[in-house]
């Protein structure tokens, strides 16, 4: 296997990246905020305060580094393990926590399970549970950008397991055929729930699959935020120049359970976990930044503390809100306008609430 692109442990002082010290600190801070948010929300689920959660622990560098290569007008069709992207792009953590509670302040009106975010203002398209569906949609959006003559690009991310779905083939093939400005980010975290890579594909890694579609494929150290940034930036530049899509395989590891319904100790060997823990993307970047003198111990402490405070405050705010969206919203957004049969059914629902009250909370 070729060695994935890595930069962090490079001996070169100047990596040739167009990043300022402030950029580097922002990358670091976003990764820490993502980690702290995940830790807290997993805990809340254990305590029965939210219904479900899905952490991206260990994969922060992959998507934060990738998304840093995007401009504000670019679009993202994300996987459900990319919570660092909205944080990086300026979405307040509190709004994400409202979504996880599905409360009255959830901008998606309590319609989906936790982590299935949608943020129109940053062109972050509603996350779907059915795996890989977003890959085709992203290719479609990228094609539309091209037809419109815009210079924007689309980033879509998905897991290694998702690459076995037909939608991966469909989206990759279409984007390549139409030279659509789409970056396919395959987050290879070694497992699809419990199923290891060798049950997913017989090929030598995933990046090589790009060749069959007539696009470049790059394998990157997904635990190296700078390598991720650089690889995706190159792909983005290519796409903006009208040269079409790129497949990026980020090699990483899911240090958390698949979700709060999963117990990885049943299938991840201890040695494997230990090996990857040593490559924790936040610690690696921290070490690099310390060495470069971009941050110091104080910065590390204060960043962690601020992130903890931020998530605590967000949770407090979310728990103070009414736990449910208004009953009428059940019928909103099925269509642009309520058709007669839904008006009728809404009346029936209202009578039900009047007579029986709102059914109790579900957590």
């Amino acid at each position, binding site marked *: 296997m070729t060695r994935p692109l890595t930069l962090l442990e490079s001996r070169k002082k100047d990596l040739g990246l167009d990043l300022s010290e402030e950029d580097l600190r922002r990358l670091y801070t976003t990764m820490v905020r993502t980690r702290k948010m995940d830790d807290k929300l997993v805990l809340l689920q254990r305590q029965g305060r939210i219904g479900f959660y899905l952490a991206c622990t260990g994969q922060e560098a992959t998507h934060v580094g990738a998304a840093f290569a995007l401009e504000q007008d670019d679009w993202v069709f994300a996987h459900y393990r990319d919570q660092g992207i909205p944080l990086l792009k300026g979405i307040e953590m509190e709004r994400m926590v409202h979504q996880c509670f599905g409360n009255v302040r959830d901008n998606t009106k309590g319609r989906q399970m936790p982590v299935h975010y949608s943020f129109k203002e940053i062109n972050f398209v509603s996350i779907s549970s059915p795996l890989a569906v977003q890959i*085709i949609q992203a290719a479609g959006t990228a094609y539309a950008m091209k037809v419109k003559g815009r210079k924007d690009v689309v980033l879509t991310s998905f897991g290694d397991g998702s690459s076995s779905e037909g939608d991966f083939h469909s989206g990759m093939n279409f984007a390549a055929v139409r030279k659509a400005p789409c970056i396919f980010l395959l987050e290879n975290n070694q497992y699809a729930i419990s199923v290891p890579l060798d049950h997913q594909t017989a090929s030598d890694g995933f990046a090589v699959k790009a060749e069959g579609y007539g696009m470049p494929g790059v394998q990157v150290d997904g635990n190296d935020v700078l390598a991720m940034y650089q690889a995706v930036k190159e792909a983005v530049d290519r796409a903006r120049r009208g040269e079409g899509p790129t497949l990026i395989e980020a090699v990483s590891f899911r240090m958390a359970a698949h979700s709060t319904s999963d117990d990885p100790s049943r299938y991840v060997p201890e040695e494997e976990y230990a090996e990857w823990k040593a490559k924790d993307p936040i610690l690696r970047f921290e070490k690099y930044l310390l060495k470069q003198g971009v941050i110091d111990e104080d910065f590390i402490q204060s960043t962690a503390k601020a992130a903890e405070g931020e998530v605590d405050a967000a949770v407090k705010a979310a728990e103070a809100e009414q736990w449910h969206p208004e009953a009428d919203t059940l019928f909103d957004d099925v269509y642009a306008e309520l058709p007669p049969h839904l008006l009728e059914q809404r009346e029936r629902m209202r009578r039900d609430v009047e007579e029986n009250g709102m059914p109790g909370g579900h957590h």
Partner: protein
Amino acid sequence: MTMIQAITHTLAQAMERDPDVLVFGEDVGPNGGVFRATDGLHAQFGEDRVFDTPLNENLIVGAAIGMAAYGMRPVPEIQFMDYIWPAYDQLVNEAAKMRYRSGGEYTCPMTVRTPYGGGIRGGHYHSQSGETPFAHTPGLVVVAPSTAHDAKGLLHASIENDDPVVFMEPKALYRAAKGDVSEGYYKEELGKAAVRQEGTDVTIVSYGSTMPMSLKAAAAAGEQDVGVEVIDLRTIYPWDKETVLKSVKKTGRLVVVNEAPLTAGFASEISATVAEEAIEYMEAPIKRVTGYDTPFPYTLEGLYMPNPNKVMQAIEEVINF
């Protein structure tokens, strides 16, 4: 104009009116579609806006969702409705729920055109009527025109609709349904049935491919002094319950005709609603005239499909009850 000509004309008109309208699918480009629905569009609007996709229905619908979310108005074609199922997930889990699951942030204004129905000796893979699962999917609109005039008006309305539409074109009527279609732009409102013929004794409710036979049977009944009111749903889902209920309250008798299999077909939904909301007006049991609960056959398609005689028989049964 024939229905197929009306469709081609409407697509061209919609593309002229709105640069965000895109047409794509299998063989729809230079070849103009296997039924010629997109004839001439590629030459007129170019490769960016009218193109052949890779042969992949899931892709065709999924990519359309992405285009629609971005603000385009894609009008993809699925060559035969029998081949829409690879795209079922994208339609039912994605397109239909985009608005809802994003809390209204993202929408999916696309129109999936697809020929459906039998009568062309196509065997089951070129003949099926697939409306039922889509008419069971909140968030989707399901349309089936039966005249050339409606094909135009409903297609314009579908393309401009801000939610996803499955636009079912009765292929047996592509050339058989002929009528005046005015050149100027017009729309027919979605969700509104058309009363094709008024009558006081029996109501027939149908849509798409089974409309001509319903009208034929109604004419035959008329010769025997039975007044049949014939309703063309035009939009299968959400359907125009008001028009149907108003009619059955007047006639007290209902025959529902659709080509799809009997069990859990859309005729069943209409029957159940009438039983639930107007049973006290009914003078006879409700009758469904539909395909049998078998796969659509090749040689025996004439036996399988509803026809004027079967509709006539149902009319007689509800009159003589």
